[in-house]
C-alpha cells in the first residue's frame, strides 16, 4: 500500500482542466519531485491533496483511507502538512506563536502549551530561526518567512510534507541549506513531495519525479530517466527541429 495515492484526480476551472486524470503515488520515506512548466497544475495538485480544493472526479487516499471528502484541518491532523507558494504566515503574531499553531492544532491529539512551546522551539531550532523567535512574523525576510512556514508544518508532526517552491527566490547558499534541510526531514522518516523549478535542486534530491504539463502527467521516473525523457525535454526546451527549416 502506498502512503498517498491519487486515482484519476481531476480539477476543472470552468472549461480549463487544471489537473486532468492524474494518477500518482508516494511511498513512505520517499522524496517525490513534482515539476512542470508554469501553469502545469502542480500547485493545484497540492491544493487537491491538502483539501483546499476538492477533486472532481477523482479519489485521493492516505494510508489506505479515502481523504477526498475530508476538510483541510482534518487532513492536517491526519499527518499531511504543507507550505505555500506565496508564504502564508500570521504576520502580527510572534514567530514562536506562529509555529505553536501547528504544534497545538496540527497533531490531532491534545498537547499542553508547554509541550507545544517545546515542540515549536525544536522546529525553530531546526530551521535556524531561534534568534528571532520573539519577533513578529511579518518583520522577517522572505527567506526567513519560508523557513517559518516549514517550521510550522514540521511542528504538526507530519508523516507527509508538501513543499511548494520552498527554494524559489533564495540565494545559492540558501538553496543548498534548504536542500540539506529537506534531506534531514526525510531522514527523520517524513515523506516529502516537493514542487520546485530549480532543476539542479530537484534532480539531485528527489528519489522519483513526476512531470506535469497542461494538467496531464507526461512522465514519471527516476531523475536520470526524467532527464533523458524526450517528452520532458520537449516541454522544457521546445520541439527538436532542423536548423534549415
Amino acid at each position, binding site marked *: 500500500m502506498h502512503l498517498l495515492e491519487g486515482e484519476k484526480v481531476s480539477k476543472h476551472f470552468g472549461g480549463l482542466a487544471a489537473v486532468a486524470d492524474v494518477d500518482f503515488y508516494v511511498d513512505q520515506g520517499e522524496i517525490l519531485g513534482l515539476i512542470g512548466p508554469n501553469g502545469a497544475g502542480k500547485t493545484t495538485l497540492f491544493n487537491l491533496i491538502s483539501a483546499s480544493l476538492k477533486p472532481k472526479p477523482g479519489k485521493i487516499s492516505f494510508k489506505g483511507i479515502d481523504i477526498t471528502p475530508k476538510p483541510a*484541518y482534518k487532513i492536517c491532523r491526519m499527518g499531511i502538512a504543507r507550505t505555500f507558494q506565496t508564504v502564508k504566515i*500570521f504576520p502580527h503574531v510572534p514567530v514562536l*506563536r506562529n509555529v505553536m*499553531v501547528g504544534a*497545538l*492544532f496540527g497533531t490531532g491529539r491534545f498537547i499542553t502549551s508547554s509541550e507545544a512551546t517545546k515542540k515549536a522551539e525544536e522546529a525553530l531550532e531546526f530551521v535556524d530561526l531561534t534568534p528571532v523567535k520573539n519577533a513578529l512574523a511579518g518583520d522577517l525576510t522572505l527567506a526567513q518567512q519560508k523557513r517559518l512556514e516549514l517550521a510550522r*508544518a514540521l511542528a*504538526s508532526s507530519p508523516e507527509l510534507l508538501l513543499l511548494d517552491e520552498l527554494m524559489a527566490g533564495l540565494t545559492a547558499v540558501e538553496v543548498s541549506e534548504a536542500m540539506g534541510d529537506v534531506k534531514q526531514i526525510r531522514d527523520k522518516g517524513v515523506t516529502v513531495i516537493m514542487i520546485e523549478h530549480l532543476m539542479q535542486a530537484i534532480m539531485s534530491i528527489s528519489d522519483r519525479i513526476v512531470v506535469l504539463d497542461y494538467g496531464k502527467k507526461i512522465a514519471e521516473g527516476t531523475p536520470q530517466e526524467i532527464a533523458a525523457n524526450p517528452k520532458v525535454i520537449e516541454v522544457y526546451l521546445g520541439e527538436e527541429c532542423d536548423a534549415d527549416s
Partner: protein
Amino acid sequence: MNNTTSIQTAGFSRSRIISLAILAVIFIVLALLPVLMPASYWITRLSEYMRYSILAIAWVLFSGPTGYMSLATAAFYGLGFYMAAILNGPLPFVVVIVLSGFAAFLVAAAIGGLTLRLRGVYFCIFTFAVVLLLNQVVLEVERIVTHTRGRFVNQESVHVAYWAMLIVFALTIGVVMYIRRSRYGLALQSIGEMEEAAAHSGINIVRTKVLIFATSAVFMGMAGAIMATRRSYIDPGIAFDMQTSFLPVLMAMFGGMGNLVGPVLGAVGFTALSDKLVVSFPDLFMLIFGVFLIVAILFMPNGIIGVVMQFWRWVRGRISKRAAVPTEKGGRGASA
C-alpha cells in the same frame, strides 16, 4: 527589548501579577462603593459604564482578532431583555441572568453557524439584519400570540443591579482575558490573519469562530437581562435598539482594540462624553459628538490606547536618550 518580550511569554510574569493585583483592587473598590456611598447617582453612572464596557469587550473578543464586524450585539442584548421580562419574578434574578447568557449562546451559535461562512461586509450586513429580524419576529409574536405590544419587567433595586453588573463585568474580563491568552485565542487570531494557513495547520475554523462568537454573546445577553430590570416597561423597539449594536463598535474603535483596557476606556470615555454633551449642549449634542468621532477616527487610528502608547514610547525614548548619552560606550558593549 529582548528582556520584556521573554517576560511576556513566561507563564506567570511580574507584570501580569501586578496587573491582576490592580484589577483586584479596582473590583474591591467598585464592590464596596454602594456601601460606602449609597448616593445612587454614581451607582447608576457606573452601571452604565460597566454595561457598555461589557458590550465593547465582548464585541472585541470576537470581532477584534477576526476582523468580522458583527452588528448583532443588540440581538443578544435584546434577547436578555425579553428573558428578564418573562422570567424575572417567577425565577430568582441569578437564574434569569444565567439563563439569558445560555439563551444568547444558543441563538448566537445558530446565527454563527449560518453566517460565519460569509465574509467581510456580507457578514456585517447579515448580523445587522438579524437584529431587525428578531425585532419584527418578537413584535409579531407578541401581537398575534400574547396580544401585547410591550411587557412589564419585575424590577430589581439599583444596588442589586449594580452588583450583578459588576459580577458580570468581572466575569467578562476574566473569561475574555483567559480566551485571548489561551490556544483558542491564538486559533482565532491566526484565523483572522490568514484563514487558509490556519485551516492547513489543523484549526477547525468554523467551530472556533462559532464557539467564540457564541461565547461573546453570553455576556451581551447577561448585560441585557440586568439592564432590563432597571426599566419598568420594554417593547421590541427598546430591546432591539440598533444603538446597542453600533455603540460598542464605536467605543472599541475609540478606545483601541489591542488590549482590554482600550474598550473599557472607550466605553467610559464615550458614555461620559455623551452625558456631558447632552447636559451642556442639548441642541448641538449630536453635531459635536459627530465631530468628535470624525476627529477620533482620523487622528487616532489605534484609539486612545494607541495615543497613550505613542506618548509613552516618546517619553521613554527621551528618558533613555538622556540616560544613554554619558554611558553610550558601555551600553553598546553590553548589547553586542
